[in-house]
């Protein structure tokens, strides 16, 4: 086998008194894709950041081409051909796509920028990724997947010998994932070493040559990827046998609690109508950009919308999120970093933000808050020190905290947008069980998800959206992957399924 280009050799890393990596060794070889998997908080992102020179190890050695190396700056690692795509977006929101891609390595002609050249190169890179976003769009207005493609393009721009990708596919559709994988293969052909992590084990199976599995900050298995199938990967990661990811479907749903008809969200969705019953889980599927998020944000008073909404038969007007909450209606955002959590605050403040009145009797009862946090940590297996700011929790643990936060306000009707983004498979199972439990308790639930399996496995009924409209509704066994895709893409099957 070829010599490693970049390797960790017995690397440990501590944050304050807490050690999160314990003697991790990992070797990346040219022309191979190395997958790193593990539970949320296992230390994958930390290991990757150390490899890419974003953080120094507390002890142990980073070797580049066999020689111990300490990168003085990210620029130095980059100059030596190492690029990283972060789990959390690493883009300047106010700059355009092109400006972000070339940030820090602008092309110049003399003193001035060579804008045409940069524009052309940006276009080239995006085309390579099948991404059609305009190069002069501000990043703040992009969809999550376009942001991810921008990130990827930014990494591809650098002539890389080593490409490190932290959950690049979490926000991508399967089609986009396929495009990315094509690029990864091309890079592998050219002899680059690639490190990659994902909680979607089928992707890992599909592309990895080498595999490392981490648990609790240590490597538990490392070897040739062909030696483990998906099931074995899951078991090794979680440390227990994994089966029955999705809970059994519930009993027949009760009476209608939410009726929406003719909902318009200007610019995003038109004429949306559906009903939701007590004890029911309604899945909402569709391609990215089909307006699912905006529809339900409109419904919950988070953006301007018109239309008729009845809650438990009573017509209501919802213009603000708190009006929705007063009606027992709550929306969990897909965007945990900029809309979900206060990254500079601790877990407790985040957990109770939405349900603060439950903890307030004149003054805030911090003891009760702590108790609620204990419960949430237990229930959702949130790992990480309580002393750290939420921004320093691992991505998956942030997602779990966001989930716990929304549930704390005990909504009767809850819209969950991409609930398991970046969550490890073990925790996913727990979350699905919890969601089903809520339904059984008599709550009504909407699950928006881009993971087809999730929608099918969890929902009693599936609403499919296409270009801002309801394309159709599928119930029970009719909700097959094939049927959903047809509706989402606008390819109608022989017999019409009209809502």
């Amino acid at each position, binding site marked *: 086998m070829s010599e490693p280009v970049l390797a960790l050799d017995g690397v440990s890393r501590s944050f304050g008194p807490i050690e999160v990596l314990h003697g991790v060794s990992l070797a990346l070889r040219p022309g191979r894709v190395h997958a790193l998997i593990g539970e949320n908080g296992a230390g994958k992102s930390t290991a990757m950041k150390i490899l890419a020179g974003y953080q120094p190890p507390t002890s142990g050695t980073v070797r580049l081409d066999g020689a111990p190396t300490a990168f003085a700056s990210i620029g130095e690692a980059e100059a030596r051909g190492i690029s990283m795509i972060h789990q959390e977006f690493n883009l300047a929101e106010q700059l355009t796509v092109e400006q972000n891609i070339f940030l820090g390595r602008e092309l110049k002609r003399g003193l001035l920028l060579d804008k045409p050249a940069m524009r052309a190169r940006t276009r080239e890179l995006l085309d390579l990724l099948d991404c059609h976003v305009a190069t002069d769009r501000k990043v703040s207005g992009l969809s999550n997947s376009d942001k991810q493609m921008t990130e990827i393009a930014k990494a591809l721009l650098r002539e890389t010998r080593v490409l490190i990708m932290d959950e690049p596919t979490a926000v991508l559709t399967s089609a986009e994932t396929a495009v990315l994988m094509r690029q990864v293969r091309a890079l592998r052909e050219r002899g680059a070493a690639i490190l990659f992590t994902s909680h979607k084990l089928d992707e890992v199976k599909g592309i990895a040559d080498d595999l490392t599995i981490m648990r609790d900050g240590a490597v538990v298995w490392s070897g040739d990827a062909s030696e483990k199938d998906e099931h074995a990967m899951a078991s090794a990661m979680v440390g227990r046998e994994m089966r029955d990811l999705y809970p059994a479907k519930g009993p027949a749903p009760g009476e209608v609690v939410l009726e929406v008809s003719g909902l318009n969200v200007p610019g995003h969705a038109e004429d949306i109508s559906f009903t939701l019953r007590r004890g029911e889980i309604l899945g909402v599927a569709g391609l990215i950009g089909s307006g699912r998020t905006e529809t339900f944000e409109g419904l919950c008073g*988070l953006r301007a919308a018109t239309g008729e909404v009845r809650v438990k038969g009573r017509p209501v007007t919802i213009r603000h999120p708190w009006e929705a909450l007063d009606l027992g209606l709550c929306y969990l955002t897909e965007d945990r970093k900029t809309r979900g959590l206060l990254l500079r*605050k601790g877990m407790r403040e985040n957990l109770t933000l939405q349900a603060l009145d439950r903890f307030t009797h004149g003054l805030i009862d*911090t003891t009760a808050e702590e108790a609620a946090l204990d419960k949430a940590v237990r229930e959702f297996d949130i790992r990480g020190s309580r002393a750290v700011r939420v921004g320093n929790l691992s991505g998956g643990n942030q997602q779990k905290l966001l989930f716990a936060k929304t549930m704390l306000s005990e909504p009767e009707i809850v819209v969950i947008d991409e609930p398991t983004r970046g969550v490890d498979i073990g925790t996913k199972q727990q979350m699905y069980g919890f969601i089903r439990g809520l339904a059984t308790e008599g709550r009504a639930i909407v699950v928006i998800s881009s993971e087809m399996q999730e929608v099918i496995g969890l929902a009693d009924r599936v609403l499919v959206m296409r270009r801002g409209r309801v394309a159709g509704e599928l119930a029970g066994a009719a909700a097959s992957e094939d049927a959903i895709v047809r509706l989402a893409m606008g390819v109608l099957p022989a017999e019409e399924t009209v809502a």
Partner: protein
Amino acid sequence: MKSPKIQMSVVGPVLALVVLLVLGASLNPSFLAWDNVTNVLARSAFIGIIAVGMTFVITAGGLDLSVGSMAAFIAGLMILVMNSALPSLGVGIPIVLLGMAVALAAGLVAGCLNGILISRLGIEAFIVTLGSMGIYRSLVTWLADGGTLSLDFGLRTFYQPVYYGGLFGVSWPIIVFALVVIVGEIAMRSTAFGRHCAAIGSNDQVAKYSSVKVARVRLTTYVVLGLLVGVATILYVPRLGSASPATGLLWELEAIAAVIIGGTMLRGGFGRVWGTVIGVLILSLIGNILNLTDLVSPYLNGAIQGAIIVLAVILQRDTRQGQ
């Protein structure tokens, strides 16, 4: 590694205050005398009360440059109203209460105006309050016809105990300041309002998605600040019984500086009221110490003041970067 850093942000301002106290005491024995201590505390009260309100505004990601001229305007208005009610009400408690009501009402309205432009129309706080700063300063000049508005002499004598009098030898401004601080500290730490301010200042999108009434909370911070400017004015007017275009000049900068010296973050998201109190005291003490000693040319007072402000913040630097 973590805990000593966290300490510094807490210890920093306190340390700066202690250094100043030691310095003051060693330079002049009268520094720690009861009279001097009460003088300084009472003088700090106006800026202090305003700075407590400013702490909430800044914590919620806002700013208010208009407080100084707002105070001048409210003082002018109060004096005008009291003087013109004098013939009908005569000297007595009712007219003082009227004056106080006018001050509070005017503060409320002024705070509302700033707050509505900022929170409902979404205009940059810096611009709104820079504008209203000019407007109030102009209005008081106009009310005073360029000169000084003075409270009727008899009325002033009657009203004066509100600044100079007190309970158990502690004067009213100090008592009111202490109350405002206590209520403010509790509100910041232990009420939903305080939490919501920090959440909005930290990330207003997240606050919105968490069903926090963002616009209303933001508006409330400005209204509370306006009211506190009213309270400060109620205590200010009996001191000299007058208002002029020079009243409250630069109070806004002093209040903001106090808030930041105290450890509140200018970009919002984190605030502490007790820190603000320390900031206010540091600022007043610098002036007091300079007056009590003849170390330097009085021309250089401003330079020393400036240097100490920067030093006081350097003392808590580590945290800043850590946060």
